[in-house]
């Protein structure tokens, strides 16, 4: 009894630690005062101001666009790469997986500057395109990491069985193999999307002047003071995701069979 109480208190403390800043931001989004130092009464004006703030809306659009495009591209390249890697010899596979893991093991700052050096020497114009390339690069490992285990579990006979029953290789892949990989692909996509959305460091080194994602926008605002509209936007995103997660989580919970 005491043990479970201690456990609950501990969990609660960790929870407060992780969510105190989030709670603070949500409160600030309703703060009528422009500075975050003092409470100026309740207001919804930042939420209406948000819609008219073109810079923030543009940054939001850039962020979502890059997250979506980079994770989709990463899913395609990553999944094909998984299939290819699985068919390689042990040695070759080790080399490929080793290189694949570099962006995850290496420091973000090093990945960021290395890509910056590359883009400069290639003479690319810094902007959405360079950010996108950088995000695809660090997203692919997350896709491979979630798809690879499913490919390993895949029974090679099902692909052959489909061919045996007269399907063309392409049809066999799309109708038989892909559905089996789908859960891995989906979780890889979600992970990549989240990582892209939350990234600051790599974007910081690969973005061009005048092109901002939410992260870089916030970073440039730090010195001037964050616009309260930003708090309103964060609150909206957070609450949306919270509701989505609750909806998604509700369904399997009922079906769950208690262990033992």
């Amino acid at each position, binding site marked *: 009894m005491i043990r479970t109480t201690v456990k609950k208190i501990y969990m609660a403390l960790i*929870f407060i*630690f992780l969510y*105190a800043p989030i709670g603070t*931001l949500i409160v600030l989004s309703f703060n009528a005062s422009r500075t975050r130092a003092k409470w100026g009464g309740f207001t919804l004006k930042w939420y209406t101001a948000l819609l008219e703030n073109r810079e923030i809306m543009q940054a939001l659009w850039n962020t979502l666009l890059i997250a979506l495009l980079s994770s989709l591209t990463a899913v395609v390249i990553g999944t094909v*790469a998984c299939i290819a890697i699985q068919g390689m010899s042990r040695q070759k596979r080790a080399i490929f997986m080793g290189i694949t893991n570099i962006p995850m093991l290496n420091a973000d*700052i090093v990945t960021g500057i290395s890509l910056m050096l*590359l883009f400069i020497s290639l003479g690319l114009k810094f902007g959405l395109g360079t950010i996108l390339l950088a995000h695809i*690069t660090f997203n*692919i490992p997350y896709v491979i990491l979630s798809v690879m285990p499913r490919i390993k579990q895949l029974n090679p006979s099902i692909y052959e069985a489909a061919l045996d029953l007269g399907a063309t290789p392409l049809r066999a892949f799309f109708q038989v193999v892909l559905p089996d990989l789908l859960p891995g692909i989906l979780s890889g996509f979600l992970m990549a999307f989240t990582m892209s959305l939350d990234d600051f460091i790599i974007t910081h080194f690969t973005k061009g002047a005048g092109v901002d994602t939410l992260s870089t926008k916030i970073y440039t605002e730090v010195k001037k003071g964050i616009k309260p509209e930003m708090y309103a936007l*964060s609150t909206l995103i957070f609450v949306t995701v919270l509701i989505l997660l609750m909806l998604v989580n509700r369904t399997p919970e009922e079906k769950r069979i208690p262990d033992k």
Partner: protein
Amino acid sequence: MKNHKLSRQMMAAPYTAWIILFIVVPLGMVFYYGLTDKTGAFTLENVLDIMSAEHAKALWYALGLSLISTLICFLLAYPLAMILADREGNAKLNRHSLILLIFILPMWMNFLLRTLAWQTLLEKTGVINRILEFFHLPSLQIINTPYAIILGMVYNFLPFMVLPIYNALVKIDPNVISAAQDLGANRLQTFLRITFPLSLGGVISGITMVFIPALTTFVISKLLGGSKILLIGNVIEEEFTLASNWHLGSGLSIVLMLFIILNMVVSAIFDKEGEGNML
């Protein structure tokens, strides 16, 4: 069959091209810039510049703060991972949603904003000090000090410690724990001789996943440390964005990578099985 192999090779082609262009070549460029001077001649000067008083101090600070943060993360995360992994205790709580709540959901609130929010909480007249004041407790003056940076590091990287330890713990066969008790081990003995050794792989992954980003961060120190404390990450960032001395920045990055490789070697020695407990 030959046809089959050919198509596999074709499938590998785009990815091979991608990783060469976007992973191998860029890293090569960091090494090239780091080991040359402005004329393009080979030099170790950029790397050795880490010895200069200013840079050595930044590296020293970064190492100290990230090690302390890693230790705190470990101490906080292990009990949490154990609670999450406890099969019997959590029958009612849906573990899956708990983990989502703890790890994934906060990431959807921008990491810079979350870190900035600690300013509001920690300031002289911030939320925490008002609460302390209310209870007539001494106020907490840690904003713009190394303590605030440690707090920011722990706050940001704690999930990366919990997750691998949790994954290692749930993989342990519950019968192995029962067997230890059956053979006479009490709770503490079971933990020290069975549970902890079996979770070591997860602990090592966790240490890597906290230590590396903490060592190399420039954002947390900038947001919570005021402008007084420079970490090695801040120095490198400024070489690229303000000073535009890419050679020096790359040279210092090579030093950072040496620490990353050192960390990987140490991990490999401790975790012989080398299983990816990362995710």
